[in-house]
């Protein structure tokens, strides 16, 4: 079965940048059937307050990995929306024009409902990019001033219905997260997150429709073997598994 891993961090805290490390990751991915990895950058390298220079550094590191295996990796442009419209537009333009990045990645620099998201979404609209928003239930974490709850991702999607959004981390968002975005057709959910709660993937398929779920591992902290088996072991048809593991991401991200 063909597989796209739509949520990976090939470089994390500067590890994964060397040729042998990248070779090893690609070999492992290919062995498990992953034919394309979507890289999202070293998004926690400087905590949650990246300067413009640090953002450039992270995206340049992503580009280095992409250059080693241009047919295997496609990257999203990591942004700090708090840096403002000018910095956001400049970095998106640079990453799209220079590196061919295909999406925008947002982590924990701010909450997705903040006003600083407006230029980010405008950039996504202008360059026709998908926005992947880190999302995790804040009921127990309680960091909502900068950490996005699924309800906040839903707010973002409601404000920008013409921008395709990936709500990251099905497990972190849980049943409540699925319910939050149920009526928002511009939101797709990736399967990454913590331990694979039994039945949650089937619940998401039942409530969102299979077309709105894509496979992601969140490596290196998580395992590709686990994320793939989560899908393959689910009570879903072969056609549904194929869509989650490959076709949905291929269509959303316009991958050949």
């Amino acid at each position, binding site marked *: 079965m063909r597989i796209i891993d739509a949520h990976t961090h090939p470089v994390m805290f500067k590890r994964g940048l060397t040729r042998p490390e990248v070779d090893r990751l690609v070999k492992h991915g290919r062995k498990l059937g992953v034919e394309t990895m979507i890289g999202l950058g070293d998004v926690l390298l400087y905590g949650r307050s990246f300067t413009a220079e640090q953002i450039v550094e992270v995206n340049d590191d992503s580009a280095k990995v992409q250059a080693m295996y241009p047919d295997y990796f496609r990257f999203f442009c990591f942004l700090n929306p708090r840096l403002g419209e000018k910095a956001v537009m400049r970095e998106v333009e640079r990453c799209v024009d220079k590196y061919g990045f295909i999406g925008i990645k947002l982590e924990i620099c701010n909450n997705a409902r903040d006003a600083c998201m407006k230029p980010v979404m405008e950039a996504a609209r202008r360059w026709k990019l998908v926005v992947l928003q880190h999302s995790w239930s804040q009921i127990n974490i309680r960091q909502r001033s900068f950490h996005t709850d699924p309800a906040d991702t839903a707010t973002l999607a409601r404000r920008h219905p013409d921008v395709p959004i990936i709500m990251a981390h099905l497990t972190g968002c849980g049943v409540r997260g699925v319910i939050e975005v149920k009526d928002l057709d511009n939101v797709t959910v990736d399967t990454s997150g913590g331990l694979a709660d039994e039945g949650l993937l089937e619940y998401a398929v039942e409530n969102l429709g299979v077309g709105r779920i894509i496979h992601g591992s969140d490596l*290196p902290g998580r395992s590709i073997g686990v994320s793939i088996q*989560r899908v393959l072991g689910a009570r879903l048809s072969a056609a549904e598994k194929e869509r989650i593991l490959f076709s949905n991401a291929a269509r959303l991200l316009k991958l050949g």
Partner: protein
Amino acid sequence: MIFDVNCYLGTWPFSLVPEMSADQLAKQLARAGVDAAAVSPLAAVFQPEPMPANRALFAALRGKRRFVPLPVVNPALANWKEQLEECAAAPGVRAVRLYPNYHDYRLTRRTLRPFVDALEHHRLRLVITARIEDERHRYFALRIKGVPVADLAAFLKANPGTVPLVTGLSVNEAPQLAAVCENFLADISYQENVELAAMLRGKLSTSRLMFGSLAPLVSVAAQTGKLSAPDFSAAERRRIAFTNAARFFSIPHADRR
């Protein structure tokens, strides 16, 4: 062959996962390639004393050769000796499980010394549950955290002759505990990384690790994916999947295919 050391019967009140019979659980495990398991009762987490849940477990697993009953004892209750004696007398029991954080006692408690002596007397092994549920995803009103590493370390140092299996240690906790104590084993239910073996190498030997899934609350198939990590040798994979657990639970050699 895969043996699951962290498996349950019963329901978790904050989960949509339906209750399963032992046969249904066996089928679910088999579908994911898991051959056998040590099974504990989830009801013992919440009920005021564990024996009714243990008795239901013994009845449910009677005659089920795939399963080793792993009953729960609450040593903070005055009747812990009776609990232990009844568990030790039940067919197939080779170990007992503790839920310290769910039963509101600390592993530094004085009564645990005679409890450990009694375990030795009954020739029972010990399983300590560091956590079942990821604290980030728990029910909002259930303010229960994992067992602190410091408490586990204090217990292990106070009982150097005991080598318990600790289930549910997080990615950070297992190496922290291993840095200060050698007399414990751990399951991999919460251990995950794209290069799991490399992450654990030098911190926790595969001779001390066992496969645990947290079934039926967590996808067993997903958990078995950890065994496909690229950097485990075939021998290491066998140890984690089966051999270490077989030794711990005294599974007869003939069954060790």
